[in-house]
């Protein structure tokens, strides 16, 4: 009887449908913007795609573990600086950062290798510091994360021989993170984040998020599960940081602190932090909202209203509104897929029938 048959929706095709659909959107929009050939719009797209990679890396741990990982942006910073050190020519380094350790000055590898090394450096540092933190949950967990972010931030801001300290770190040369690099990275990391979530490790991490006692009595080693996931998330963060530094070309430690964290958090929360699609749509929505609001700010200022900073206020209020009325964000626990679209439409039809 059909009633008892289980719909088999864990086949390969349906597993792929979410990242494929999201990638198609990302690529089509990217092509269109490239074709438009307006530098200002291309810049918005490129930085949005980089931000998407950051939000996805954030979602990997934050969304699936339920622990607010403040320290994530610190690892973005670590990746940003270290990949830049790896990719810059020795001449450029000795010119821009005369104080830098000689052994760092002499390293020089191709851009793509530098991005991967940036991710690896972030992962190694996460692996060294994270184990004891993974035992702590809830508020205490978030506080230790916050403390770690401060440690990373101060080191990035003060270690003159590596990061040029409080001065700006200038990469020089040309923008290596082009619109294409950003787009391809976005697509690759969409797949990575989705497959992580569906992987054995991702499932276990989500189980510890929902109920750590039940996870334990299902055989899950919570500390190990969190630890591996955290390292993985830090690696993606480091990679994203490398994309960022090779796009913006001059960085300093404050770029990887509260402002960035708030930016990523607002995207994850509003989009829906439990879902990869949520991270995706949150990034798009917030990028558009911020751009729109930024255009309005000077107009208002010209009209005699001092509106500087109002963008941040509006985004913050929006986040509060979401947390109050739809705490799990736009996408909640759902992913974009043919079956979720179908059920959305059938629900709408049902609602229409009811009201009719």
């Amino acid at each position, binding site marked *: 009887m059909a*009633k*008892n*048959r*289980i*719909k*088999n*929706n*864990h086949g390969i095709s349906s597993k792929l449908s979410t990242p494929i659909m999201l990638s198609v959107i990302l690529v089509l929009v990217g092509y269109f913007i490239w074709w438009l050939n307006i530098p200002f719009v291309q810049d918005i797209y490129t930085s949005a795609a980089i931000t998407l990679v950051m939000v996805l890396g954030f979602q990997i741990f934050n969304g699936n573990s339920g622990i607010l990982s403040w320290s994530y942006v610190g690892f973005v910073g670590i990746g940003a600086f270290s990949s830049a050190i790896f990719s810059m020519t020795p001449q450029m380094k000795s010119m821009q950062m005369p104080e830098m350790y000689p052994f760092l000055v002499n390293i020089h590898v191709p851009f793509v290798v530098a991005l991967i090394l940036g991710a690896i450096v972030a992962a190694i540092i996460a692996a060294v510091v994270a184990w004891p933190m993974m035992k702590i949950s809830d508020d205490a967990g978030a506080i230790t994360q916050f403390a770690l972010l401060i440690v990373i931030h101060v080191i990035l801001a003060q270690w003159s021989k590596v990061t040029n300290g409080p001065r700006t770190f200038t990469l020089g040369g040309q923008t290596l993170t082009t619109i294409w690099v950003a787009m391809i990275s976005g697509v690759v990391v969409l797949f990575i984040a989705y497959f992580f979530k569906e*992987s*054995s490790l991702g*499932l*276990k991490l*989500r*189980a510890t*998020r*929902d*109920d750590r*006692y*039940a*996870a*334990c*009595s*299902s*055989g*899950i*080693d*919570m500390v190990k599960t969190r630890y591996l996931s955290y390292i993985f998330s830090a690696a993606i963060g480091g990679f994203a940081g490398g994309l960022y530094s090779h796009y913006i070309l001059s960085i300093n430690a404050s770029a990887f602190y509260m402002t960035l964290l708030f930016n990523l958090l607002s995207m994850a929360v509003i989009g829906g932090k*439990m879902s990869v699609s949520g991270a995706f749509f949150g990034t798009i929505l917030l990028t558009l909202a911020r751009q729109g609001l930024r255009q309005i700010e000077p107009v208002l200022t010209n009209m005699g209203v001092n509106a500087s900073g109002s963008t941040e206020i509006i985004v913050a209020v929006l986040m509060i509104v979401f947390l109050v009325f739809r705490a799990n964000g736009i996408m909640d*626990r759902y992913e974009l897929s043919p079956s979720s679209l179908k059920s959305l439409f059938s629900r709408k039809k049902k609602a229409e029938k009811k009201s009719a």
Partner: protein
Amino acid sequence: MENKSFLEVKSICKSFGSLKAVNDVSMRIETGEILGLIGPNGSGKSTFINLITAMLKKDSGSVMLDGVDLSSMPAHKVPKNGLARTYQTVRLFKNLTCRENLIIGAIGVGISQKEANKIADELLEEMGLAEKADSFVENLTFSEQRFLEISRALACKPKFVLLDEPAAGLNEEETQHMLDLLKELPAKKHIGILIVDHDMHLIMTLCDKLHVLNYGQTIAEGKPEVVRANPEVVKAYLGSTAE
């Protein structure tokens, strides 16, 4: 012929300060058996359960499952060594689908994801939850949630299952349904069941043996009809409700 497994609790003790919550309790259960653990509130049942699943560290004694001491390993290794449990206050993964809840049960003990998928679908079918496979837990009735939690415990292919008040909060019809299910589980899954419940009807009909605790100590054990007639049990637990 499959081999029988044995779960043997030997003189386990646990104190909280000066209170001896569990004092020198021993019991033994084998594959195919249903053992009922009863006792008044505060008699040490919950502590006992947490001790044998290693959620609490024992003071002394041991919990041997086929020669391996469960009580001295980290709690998350217990299911892999053959003992799974459920909770009195149903603990499910609320943001995961029913199928995913069961998959967790299997992959938690190292079963591959592919195999876990198969196990999950089979269990959903057996428990009559197939239709809700892709629903989130909140869309299940309370009794369906209890069945799902038991399924999750079974998904790790345990040798023994510990059920903490599986009939709590169920109405008469649902309790009967639960009873029918539990009755056939030991033979079907080749497991032993340790069950804690307040529902005397359920306990008396279901269990092959009973074990009664009071003030952390064993006051009686044996066949249900024998235990029921024990005056100390009547006094301590069954009181005037004993028929």
